[in-house]
C-alpha cells in the first residue's frame, strides 16, 4: 500500500462487493415483490391496511415504539400433529388398545413409546393429540388406520418455537409480511412482547386504546410507559360520557366530571396495532390453519 490510490481501490472493491451482495442482491430478489397467494386459499397476502391503520404506522414510527417491540416471529422448525376429533362409536379405552395393536406397523414402531405416553391417562377428552413430531409418515398411517374404523382425526402441520408457543404468532415472519410497511419497523429488542400478530391476540380497539392510556390497568406488571399524551381529558357534557370516552377502572379514571377521549392519533395507532395479523400460511412459511377432517 504505497499510494492513496491503492488504498482507495482496496476499499472500493471491498465495499463494492458487499454493496453488490447485500444491497443489489436483495433489491433484485425482493425489491419487486408483489402480493403473494395465501396457501389453500384464493386470498392474497398481505392485505392493504385501512387509512387509519396506515396513518397509525406513522404514529408507531414517530414515537419510537420499535425501540422496545419487535414485529418478527422466529420459528425453529415445524411439526406434524395428529389429534382425535371424533371417536365415532368407540370408547377411549377400546381405542387405546386398538392403537397399541397398531404398533407392529413398521412406520409406527419407532414411535410406540411416544404415542403410548401421549395416550396415558386419557379418558376421552377432545381434541386429543396422538402424535406430534417431525415424521409425517406416522401421521398419515395413523390417520388411515383410524379412518378405517370410523374415528375422525385431524392432521396438521404446525410451526414450532418459543415465540409460537408463547402465542405471538402461528408461523415465522417472512419478507412478504412487510410489503406495505414504509418504513419497515422490525425492532431489535423485546423489552415488550412481539407485535407481529397483536391484532390476532387483542383485536379489540378499545382494549388497545385503554392499554395505551394506562397499560397497568390491563396488564399487571407491565413495564410499558403510558402514552397519555395521545389522549385528552375533557369535561363530560351534561354528566354523560362521550361516545368514544375510555371506560377505565376506578383507580385510573379521572374525577370531577372529567373523561378521557382518544385523539385521532391514538385511534390511528390502535387501528394499526389491530391490523397486525401475520396469521396466514404462505409458501415460504407453511402451516395448516384450518381443521382438515380425515
Amino acid at each position, binding site marked *: 500500500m504505497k*499510494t*492513496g490510490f491503492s488504498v482507495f481501490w482496496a476499499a472500493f472493491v471491498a465495499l463494492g462487493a458487499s454493496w453488490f451482495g447485500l444491497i443489489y442482491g*436483495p433489491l433484485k430478489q425482493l425489491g419487486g415483490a408483489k402480493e403473494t397467494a395465501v396457501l389453500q386459499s384464493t386470498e392474497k397476502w398481505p392485505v392493504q391496511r385501512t387509512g387509519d391503520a396506515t396513518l397509525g404506522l406513522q404514529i408507531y*414510527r414517530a414515537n419510537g415504539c420499535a425501540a422496545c417491540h419487535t414485529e418478527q416471529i422466529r420459528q425453529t422448525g415445524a411439526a406434524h400433529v395428529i389429534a382425535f376429533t371424533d371417536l365415532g362409536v368407540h370408547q377411549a379405552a377400546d381405542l387405546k388398545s386398538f392403537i397399541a395393536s397398531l404398533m407392529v406397523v413398521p412406520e409406527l414402531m419407532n414411535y410406540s413409546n411416544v404415542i403410548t405416553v401421549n395416550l396415558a391417562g386419557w379418558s376421552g377428552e377432545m381434541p386429543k393429540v396422538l402424535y406430534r413430531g417431525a415424521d409425517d409418515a406416522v401421521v398419515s398411517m395413523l390417520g388411515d388406520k383410524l379412518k378405517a374404523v370410523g374415528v375422525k382425526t385431524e392432521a396438521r402441520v404446525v410451526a414450532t418455537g418459543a415465540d409460537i408457543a408463547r402465542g405471538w404468532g402461528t408461523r415465522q415472519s417472512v419478507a412478504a409480511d412487510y410489503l406495505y410497511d414504509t*418504513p*419497515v419497523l422490525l*425492532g431489535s429488542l*423485546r423489552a415488550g412482547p412481539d407485535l407481529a400478530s397483536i391484532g390476532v391476540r387483542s383485536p379489540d380497539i378499545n382494549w388497545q386504546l385503554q392499554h395505551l392510556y394506562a397499560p397497568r390497568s390491563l396488564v399487571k406488571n407491565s413495564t410499558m410507559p403510558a402514552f397519555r*399524551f395521545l389522549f385528552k381529558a375533557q369535561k363530560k357534557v351534561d354528566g354523560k360520557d362521550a361516545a368514544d370516552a375510555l371506560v377505565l377502572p376506578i383507580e385510573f379514571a379521572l374525577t370531577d366530571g372529567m373523561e378521557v377521549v382518544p385523539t385521532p392519533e391514538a385511534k390511528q395507532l390502535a387501528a394499526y396495532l389491530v391490523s397486525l395479523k401475520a396469521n396466514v400460511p404462505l409458501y415460504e412459511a407453511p402451516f395448516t390453519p384450518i381443521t382438515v377432517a380425515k
Partner: protein
Amino acid sequence: MNPTENKIFGANEIDTSCRVPLLALFGGAALWLVLGLALGIVAMLSFHKPDIFADCPFLNCGRAQAAANDLLLYGFAMPAALGVLLWIFARLSQSPLALPIVPVIAANLWHVGVLIGTSAILIGESTGHPWLEYPRAAVVLLFAAFLLIAVSAVATMGLRLNRELYPSHWFLFAALLWFVWSYGTANLFLVCNHPPRGGVQAVINWWLTNNLLFVWLGLIGVGIAFYFLPKIASKPLANSGYTLFAFLTLIFFGTWVGIPQSAPVPAWLPTVSAFAALLSLVPVIAIGIIAWKTVCGAKVSCLGGPFCFIKFGMLGFVVSSLLYLSEFCPRASRVLDFTWYNFGVTQWQLLGFAGMILCGAIYEILPRVMDRELPFAKLAKLNFFLFAGGTLLFVIPLLIGGVEQGLKLRDAAVPFADTSAVALKFLRLSTTGQLLLLLGSLCLLPNILAMTIQWKLGLARTVIAYIKSPLETPEVKL
C-alpha cells in the same frame, strides 16, 4: 509535485493550522456527547418509572433513545473522529492543513445538521430506521459537511513529504470513502420519496448499521490508535506486515456482517453474514495482537492520560468486536437476539471503544494545537476513570441481563413479564454506569470550552492591542 517546492514545516506551524477547525469540531462533539449521554439516561428513566413522561411526548423512551444513539454516533464520534483525522493527516504529511477554512465551515454545517436531526427525532419526525433517524434536511447537511472535510483531509494527505503511506493512512483514508458510500447509499434508498418495498428496507438498514458501527468505527478507532500508540510508547508499530493483512481482512470480511440470524429475509442473507462474522474474527484478533505487541514493554506511566484512554479503547475494540460477532453465530443468536445484549454491545462499541480512543486523542492533541497546557488536567485524568468505570458498569449488566433475558425468552413456559423483570434488575445497575459516563463527559466539555474561551480572549487581546497601539505617523521632513 515538484519536490523543490516543499518547505519543511515545524510541528508548531502544523498544529497551529489545525487550531480553528479542531476547536470547531471538538467543541461541538463534546457538547453533543454530554447531551447524548444525558438523553440516554432520560430514555432509561422510562424503565425505572414507566409513566414519567406519559404527558411529554418529546422525551418518551423511543424518541429519547433514538436521539441519544444518534447524538453519540453523529454528534460526538463523527466530528471528533474527523478532527483527529485531519490533525493526524497534517502531522503525517509534515505539512499544515490544506484548505483550513473548509473544515471550519463543514464543522458548523455538521453541528447544525445534528441539531436539526436531534430536534426532528424529539418532535416525532424521525425516519424510523435505526441509526438513520435523521430526516433529509439533516442528512444533506451532514453529507455535505463530511464531503468538505474529506476534501480537506485528502488534500492534506496529497501534500505529504514522505510518499510512503503509514498504516494509519490506510485505515483513516478508507474510513472517508466508507462513510460517503454507505451513508449515501442507505439514505438514497431509505430517506427518499420512493423507498424499496418491504423487507429490503431492513436489509439496507442492517448493512448500513454494520458498516458504520463495526467497520467505520473500527477503521477510525484502529487508525487513530495505530498512530498514537507507537508515538506515546516511543517504539515502532509492531508487525507492520500483519497490519496490512489486518486492514484488508477487516474491510473485506467485516463489511458482509450485519444481517441478524433471525431476520425475516431469504436465508442466504443471514448465512452470508454468519460466515463473514466468523472470518472477521481474523482481523479483530490480528489487530489485538499488533496493539498488544506495540504497547507491551513500553515504559510510559499514564495514570489516566491519553495512553490509558487509547489502550482501554483498543481493549474495548477487541472485546466489543468479539461480542458483536458472536451475535451472528446461529446458535448464540437464538438466545442473544432481541435482548439487551445487542444494545450493550453497541454502546460498548460507541463509548468503550471509539469514545475512549477519541477522548484520548483529543486530550493528546488539544494542548499541542492550542500551544498551552490543558486548563483542567486533573479533570482529564478523572475523565478516564469515570469513562472506564462507567462503560463497564453500563455495559456488563446489559450483557449479562441480555443473556439471562434471552434464556428466559427461549423458554415458552416462562411468562413474558418475568423476562422483562429480569432485565429490569440489570438496568438499574447499568443506569448507574450511565451516570458515571455523563460525569466523565462533563470533564471533557470544560477543558475544550475553557481552551476555546482562552483562545477567543487571546484573539480579542491581540485585536485590542492592535487598535490601541499608536499609529505610526510618517515623519514629516520640514
